[in-house]
C-alpha cells in the first residue's frame, strides 16, 4: 500500500478503521470509570507526592492521560520539572 499511497497521494483512512480506533480509545476511558472530579483529585495527589522529592516547575502544566497500549492500557502522567540546579 505504501507504494500506491506515494503514487496516488494519500487516501483518507477507511471509515470503519477510524470508528474502531475512536471506539477503542473512548472505551479506555469508559472502562476505567474515572470521573473528571476523581481525575482532578488524583492529579493533585500525584503533584503532592512528586513535590516531596523534586521541584515541579508548574503544577498546572501536569498532564494525566489514559492511553491504549498493545496488551494493557496506560495511565500516563507528564510532570514538567524545574531546571534550577540543586543548591
Amino acid at each position, binding site marked *: 500500500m505504501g507504494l500506491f499511497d506515494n503514487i496516488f497521494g494519500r*487516501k483518507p483512512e477507511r471509515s470503519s478503521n477510524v470508528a474502531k480506533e475512536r*471506539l477503542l480509545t473512548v*472505551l479506555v476511558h469508559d472502562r476505567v470509570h474515572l470521573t473528571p472530579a476523581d481525575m482532578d483529585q488524583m492529579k493533585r495527589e500525584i503533584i503532592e507526592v512528586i513535590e516531596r522529592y523534586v521541584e515541579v516547575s508548574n503544577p498546572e502544566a501536569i498532564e494525566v492521560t489514559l492511553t491504549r497500549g498493545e496488551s494493557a492500557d496506560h495511565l500516563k502522567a507528564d510532570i514538567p520539572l524545574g531546571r534550577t540546579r540543586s543548591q
Partner: protein
Amino acid sequence: MAHIITLTSGKGGVGKTTTTANLGTALAMQGQRVVVIDADIGLRNLDVVMGLENRIVYDLVDVVEGRCRTRQALIKDKRFPELFLLPAAQTRDKDAVSPDDMVALCTELGREFDFILIDSPAGIEGGFKNAIAPANQVLIVTTPEMSAVRDADRIVGLVEAYEKGHPKLIINRIKPQMIARGDMMDTSDVVEILAIDLIGIVPDDESIVTSTNRGEVAVLDRNSLAGRAFHNIASRLLGNDVPFLVLEEKPSVLSQFFGRFRTRRT
C-alpha cells in the same frame, strides 16, 4: 432448569425486540416450550412484532399485582401451540414491577417452559434491572456502529457486575457491502472490541421490515437470510454447533486499489 435468557443492548433500536420474537419462534419451531416476556413497560412492542396485538387482555403488571393468574395473561401464538407471549403493560407506572417480582414470575414459568426469553428495554435503568434479574443467560444485541458498541460494552460490565456470567453477543444489521467498502466495522472488529463470545450475526435485511409489517417473523420466511441467521442462533442456544453465515467479504487489496480510482474520479 429452564433457560431464562434476557436480550439487552444499552442503546435503543438495535433489534432486541426483533431478535426476541424471532428466537422465540425459532425455538418453538424446534419443539421447545417457549414464553417471551415483554419487559419494556410503557412501550409495548413485542406483541405487534409477533402479530398478537389484538389478543391481549392482561399484561405483566396485572400478573405482578395479582389481578390475574399468570396463565391468564399468556397469549398463545397463532401458529405454535407451545409459544406464548406475556405482554408489557402499556400505560402503567414503570415502577410497578421489581426485580424480585421478575424472579418470582420466571421461577413459576420455569416449571412449565423450556425457554423464557425476556425482551429488555433500552438503557440501564430500572427496566433493564428488572429484565436481567431472573436471567441465567444474557444475550447482548448490538449493531456494528460506534454508539451501539460503546453501550454494549457498558452492558457487558453491568452484566458481569450482576454476576450473570459471560454474556454472549449478537451483531445485528450487518451490511456486507458497507463492510466491503471499509465503511462498517466487521464482525471481527466488534468481537475484538467487546471481547465476549459471539452467538450470532444477522444481516440488515428488508424481509425484517416486510415480515414485521404483516405481524409475522422472519424465521417463518424460508427466503429470509435474517430468518436463517435467527434459526442458527436458536440452534446454538440448544447446544448445537452451527457455523456462522458468511455475510461479509473483506475488501481485497485489488478492490481497494480500484476503489481508489473511483474515489479520485468523483
